């Protein structure tokens, strides 16, 4: 049905509201590797064209390793939570390709603003995964130094970090590291957020600021179909990547379970940003295979059928199939990655238990860069109070 003056029926333009359960996310989905592990071509995005066969194989093996180790971090942390070593854990199961694709597309000079679930991006940026556990264990609120790996602290207030990302990108513009043509100098920012977050005012304001200043920021939305118990349909009745069009910058939907496509699309978007062409919205279409966090019970609100269907699209299995089918990796490689995963698991298990609890008095330390006298007094009073128990205990 056409609606005079208001353009054609939206369904005609955008297609029927996609279903979280459907097998296809629509024609507009950029995919380079099928769930069966077969390479497919896309008119606009390519992977590996500039690489020799050996280089290509090495890169894909790298992706496989990154995803496998990322999943291991996730599995290990989930187990640590079950054993009471972590208070909570936000699982990324199923989102490894989106995160590793995005993470590997970043250059060292690019800066990441993550949510609380970007363990795979943190991995790619070189953050020791043990440091990710502190927040979830309750010993700190982010144990890594954001400046060391250009990887910001996890942000829990939904959407807030997208504005920080935009501001940081505006800072890059002022630093003259955008559009200089020097590939080692030009930089961009990536802002991670979820499908639910797309409804927050802050996220939409970040689109506005980024568009207004043409800031070098890639908005990377992992549409994992769920915001805790709420399906994507509650947040948007059209595919999310199209949101960007309303703000005057491009949006693209990529198969978030396809690491090659996630990498290729993010890389191109980051390149646009670095070159001074402004923001892009990348919607990585994926699925949250686990619970929202370890405290969530998804059986209350979704069908296990959906989860089963998405299992067939597993991001790691398809790369494994691709590597094997094309003889790009031998058993030795897979064994080595397994061994590495074991080591990583060990590192996390032992490391986690050894993470020291903070001292109660440390809470006063970094409230300010310049501590105030009244806080000193408060700390000293508390110290004296704590000492009064020393004898008693």
């Amino acid at each position: 049905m056409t609606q005079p003056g208001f353009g054609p029926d939206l369904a005609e333009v955008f297609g029927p509201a996609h279903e979280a359960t459907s097998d296809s996310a629509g024609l507009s989905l950029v995919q380079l590797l099928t769930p069966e592990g077969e390479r497919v071509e896309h008119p606009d995005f390519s992977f590996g064209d500039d690489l020799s066969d050996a280089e290509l194989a090495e890169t894909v093996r790298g992706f496989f390793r990154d995803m496998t180790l990322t999943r291991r971090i996730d599995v290990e942390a989930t187990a640590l939570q079950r054993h009471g070593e972590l208070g909570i854990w936000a699982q990324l199961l199923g989102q490894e390709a989106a995160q590793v694709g995005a993470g590997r597309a970043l250059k060292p000079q690019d800066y990441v603003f993550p949510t609380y679930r970007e363990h795979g991006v943190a991995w790619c940026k070189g953050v020791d995964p043990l440091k990710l556990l502190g927040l979830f264990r309750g010993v700190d609120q982010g144990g890594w130094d954001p400046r060391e790996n250009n990887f910001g602290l996890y942000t829990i207030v939904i959407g807030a970090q997208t504005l920080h990302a935009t501001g940081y990108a505006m800072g890059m513009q002022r630093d003259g590291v955008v559009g200089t043509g020097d590939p080692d100098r030009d930089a961009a920012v990536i802002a991670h957020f979820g499908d639910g977050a797309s409804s927050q005012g802050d996220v939409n304001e970040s689109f506005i600021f980024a568009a207004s200043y043409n800031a070098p920021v890639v908005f990377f939305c992992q549409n994992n179909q769920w915001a805790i118990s709420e399906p994507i349909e509650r947040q948007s009745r059209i595919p999310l990547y199209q949101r960007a069009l309303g703000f005057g910058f491009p949006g693209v939907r990529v198969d978030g379970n396809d690491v090659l496509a996630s990498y290729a699309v993010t890389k191109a978007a980051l390149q646009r940003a670095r070159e001074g062409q402004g923001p892009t919205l990348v919607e990585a279409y994926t699925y949250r295979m686990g619970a929202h966090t370890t405290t969530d019970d998804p059986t209350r609100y979704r069908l296990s059928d959906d989860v089963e269907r998405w299992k067939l699209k597993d991001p790691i299995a398809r790369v494994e199939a691709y590597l094997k089918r094309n003889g790009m990796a031998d058993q030795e490689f897979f064994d080595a990655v397994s061994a590495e995963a074991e080591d990583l698991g060990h590192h996390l298990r032992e490391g986690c238990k050894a993470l020291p609890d903070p001292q109660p008095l440390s809470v006063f330390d970094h409230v300010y860069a310049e501590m105030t006298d009244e806080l000193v007094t408060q700390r000293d009073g508390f110290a004296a109070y704590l000492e009064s128990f020393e004898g008693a205990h």
Partner: protein
Amino acid sequence: MSEKTTQKVTLAKALNMGLRKAMEDDAKVLLMGEDVGKLGGVFRITDGLQKDFGEDRVIDSPLAESGIVGTAVGMALRGYKPVVEIQFDGFVYPAYDQIVCQVAKMCFRSQGKTPLPIVIRIPFGGGIGAVEHHSESPEAQFAHTPGLKVVACSNPIDGYWMIQQAIAAPDPVVFLEPKRQYHADKAELDDTATPAPLFTSRVVKQGTDVTVLAYGPTVKTALKAAEAAGNEGRSLEVIDLRTLSPLDMGPVLESVRKTGRVVVSHEAHVNLGMGAELAARITEECFYSLEAPVLRVGGFDTPYPPARIEEEWLPDLDRVLDAVDRTLDF
């Protein structure tokens, strides 16, 4: 009408029952928030309500707190009584503008023509081992805002009645629920009883030596402190404030005139917390009855700490008793 039936319920269950009752009593009552529908809220306070009252009355909202409160304003203007759930205390701030500039001011702005009977439910306080932003105590900011009323329940019985009273009230009410207590204790609920009026405080333990003022999560701490102090021969009177704006100073002043000594305890930061206002008012009203200054035991003036040290940070039994000692030694 209904026969007297009592059952043992948790605070979570009592709130759920209170909400259900309010929805049965008044078809204009709507619930809205993140995950309040199928999931029944992350704390299950709205469990089963969408199933029974439908999606039109129990509304899962997009993930946007300003949107939740702002649309609730519109629904209230249309004659509905929205009860919105803020998922955690720390996530009320995106809605702060709508609460402070719109919810709080609509009745005044319209010279009483469009009062806004909205209830904003906020699970508040710490002690649940959560990550940042999940253990905040934002009450003082709302109590500072004219046009809002602010109450905090501390136990299942109050939870059941107060939520219904808040919904029935013609003014916007910020309704604080001590999340740490949701599943902690059960109490015998008699739903034929007559509850005390909403905006009243209550002496929950009588005593003669020191008055301890508490609300929400610290009521339990205060009662425990009273017990411990009692064992050492010190008689504490504990008042559950219940209402933070307006304050019900009657029982407080009466108690202070008797004891001459006051300790206020809350999880919120001490600086400009409720304790500051209580200290100022008590001192103004009972200047010559006070044997010692009002002492405040609360969260330190730091951000809420990582969970592993929250129990040290929070005002616990020992810190309340320490203040009791200090006021007695003054």
